[in-house]
């Protein structure tokens, strides 16, 4: 604020000046859990979902993913790892899809050097016993560069939260995924994590092993489950991971439910609308016209 020159304050306020002040305000408010417009976004690579998110998941912010039920932790971790894969191969503005929000994305294309795109996966030991540990040979298939993944196990929930907070503050980390049971974490803890995320440049992701509806400081909450196969598909080969993704909380836009498939070659989510008529979300999807 002190940097604002005196002469400009006496000049007639222009639209540009107001816009600048607005941005400054936004930046000031950012640590409070509302990431300002200036923050970079991690797009999911799908216009419908990214549209609902206003471009993608904000970096320097906390997000939550919950498994639809405990048996579906693998599906939820698949979703989280797919996001991690997108983080590792950060494309920023170069994504193939062109539409209105993408244009905005272009305008503030953020370059993220490879050295800052490390992913840290933190899990409670209990959960690893219950749900299995990440298996290296599979990560490659999702598109994760295992060289840039660090796994941390902790005996107690407290240590998971501490490790997440520390990792979120590190500038060399692009994404921090903390796997935990929903019961042990309260709003103070999520608030701390959100603040830590706002201070760094990493995307914080809490991966709950079961759904939870407690209030939290996260910007979005996803409930991820496995999408059941259609009758027509019985007896056929098993395709790419197909997930039922429900955006259950979104501070920046509408909610929605999608059935998505992870395209590991192009590293983006694709809507599996052909298989499930209910996939259409209850909001306007301008990209449809843009593509046509």
């Amino acid at each position, binding site marked *: 604020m002190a940097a604002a020159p005196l002469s400009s304050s006496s000049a007639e306020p222009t639209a540009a000046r107001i816009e600048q002040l607005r941005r400054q305000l936004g930046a000031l408010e950012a640590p409070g859990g509302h990431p300002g417009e200036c923050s970079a976004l991690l797009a999911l690579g799908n216009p419908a979902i990214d549209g609902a998110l206003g471009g993608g998941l904000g970096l320097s912010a906390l997000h939550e993913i919950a498994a639809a039920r405990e048996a579906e932790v693998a599906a939820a971790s*698949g979703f989280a790892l797919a996001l991690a894969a997108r983080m590792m191969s950060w494309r920023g503005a170069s994504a193939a899809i062109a539409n209105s929000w993408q244009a905005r994305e272009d305008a503030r294309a953020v370059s993220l050097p490879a050295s800052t795109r490390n992913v840290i996966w933190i899990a409670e030991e209990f959960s690893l016993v219950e749900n299995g540990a990440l*298996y290296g*040979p599979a990560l490659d298939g999702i598109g994760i560069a295992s060289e840039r993944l660090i796994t941390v*196990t902790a005996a107690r929930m407290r*240590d998971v939260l501490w490790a997440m907070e520390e990792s979120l503050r590190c500038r060399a*980390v692009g994404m921090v995924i903390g796997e935990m049971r929903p019961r042990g974490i309260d709003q103070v803890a999520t608030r701390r994590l959100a603040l830590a995320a706002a201070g760094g440049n990493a995307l914080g992701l809490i991966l709950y092993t079961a759904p939870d509806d407690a209030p939290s400081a996260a910007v979005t909450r996803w409930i991820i489950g496995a999408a059941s196969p259609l009758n027509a598909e019985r007896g056929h080969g098993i395709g790419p991971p197909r997930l039922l993704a429900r955006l259950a909380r979104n501070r920046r836009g509408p909610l929605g439910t999608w059935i998505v498939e992870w395209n590991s070659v192009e590293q983006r989510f694709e809507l599996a609308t052909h298989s499930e008529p209910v996939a259409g979300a209850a909001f306007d999807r301008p990209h449809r016209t843009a593509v046509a």
Partner: protein
Amino acid sequence: MTDRIARQWREAPSPLVVFGKRGNLDLLLAIDVAAERLGLAAGLALAQARAMHPTLAAVPEDQDADARLLDAIANACHRYTPLVAVDPPDGILLDIGGCAHLFGGEEKLRDDLLARMMRLGLSARAAVAATIGAASAAARFGDVATTADASRDARERLAPLPLAALRLSDETVAALARLGLKRIGDILDLPRAPLAARFGADLLRQMDRALGREDEPLTPRLPIPHYLAEKSFHEPITREEDVLACVERLAARLKTALTARGDGARRLELALFRTDGAVKRIAVGTSRPLRDPQAVRALFVERLAALGDEIDPGFGFDLARLSVLNAETCADEQIGLGTREDQAGLDRLIDRLSARLGRRRVSRLVARDSHIPELAAASVPAQAMTPAEFGWDTFRRFRAEAGLSQRPLRLLAKPEPIAEVFALVPDGPPARFRWRRALHEVVRAEGPERIEGAWWSEEGGPARDYFHVEDTAGLRFWLFRAGLYRDTALSPPRWFMHGLYA
């Protein structure tokens, strides 16, 4: 020149003896001063001693406890020198060459050591001599006042001592005694060849070692650090902040030494010597050579936080020593190149996480050269790794060439047996199965992928047929049948759950 101190200890509360079985007899092994005044001596039969003094308090020996005490004392002796060796059953050897002057000379060091032992309620004898043999002989058998006088000639000092002081076997000592040879002086000038022929080479070797004619190495009980810095306190410190401040000061001193040699620390140990003789050792590792005192302090902050109450300062620490256990060449760093800074930031994070949670809990995934699923990948402490060793490039090439099927995202630590498996054809995928009490109806399946165990070892067990199946809810599993139906004569095949797909 190398100096040594050999010490001896005994337990000493009220009139008390310690006994133990030697041969068929319960013998007195150690006695306290009060018992000595009663006319008892070590080596006496317990029955005889009890006949003489029916009220005698006798406790059976506990060799483990003795060894532990000896080890604890040896630990406390590290305050004098890093070269400390345990000389069982009752001695500790210190190599004080080059460090005696720090305590005001050999005599002062010995006095300080004895005073410390006395305060701990231990009666000890100590002697300084030029060889291990001479020091041990003087401490155990000598009149400390005269024999420990380092200025006198080793021959002269050893001559009046009994032959047992040469660390010989009992039989040798007894055989020599039968010939009237009782003191070391008796054999010093005898012809060597007949002595060796009659009593073995050991006699001559022990004599030569005591006289310094043959070198005897000291085997330190702990590795000798490459660098160390220490600070002693007149007023013992107890607070964590004081310890950390001290760590930072010591690290600053180490930095000078490390920089001079172009090294950085990979593993550091902080030894805190408590006034009552206990020693706390706290080690931290780093993922890259480290010199920065602030960073060293930060690591110990995490370590101390993780240890919590385990660091019991008692009445305080009066000596702190920071040593570098592993050092590595550390290139001087440039500042301002983004990538390097990020890497350094990541390394610092790994170090802090490792210090707090434990080295093994912060890991990287590494590909291993094995076709058995659970052996194909491993977690290796992130601190120990450099990216070149991960092996994923090799794995990717192999995967592309072999057309490896998609693997499950999460692998269970141990394959879990599944029950009520119902397969349509004997070698086909299951149509339904029960796992963790839930019944799963399979709608889609891929497989089998047969993975044989290694024929040259038992590793991996019988052949496995893996199936990738999906149930009605869309859950995807990786399960296998161990054993083939054609081998049912041996044992029926069993089914296991091994992994979960997204």
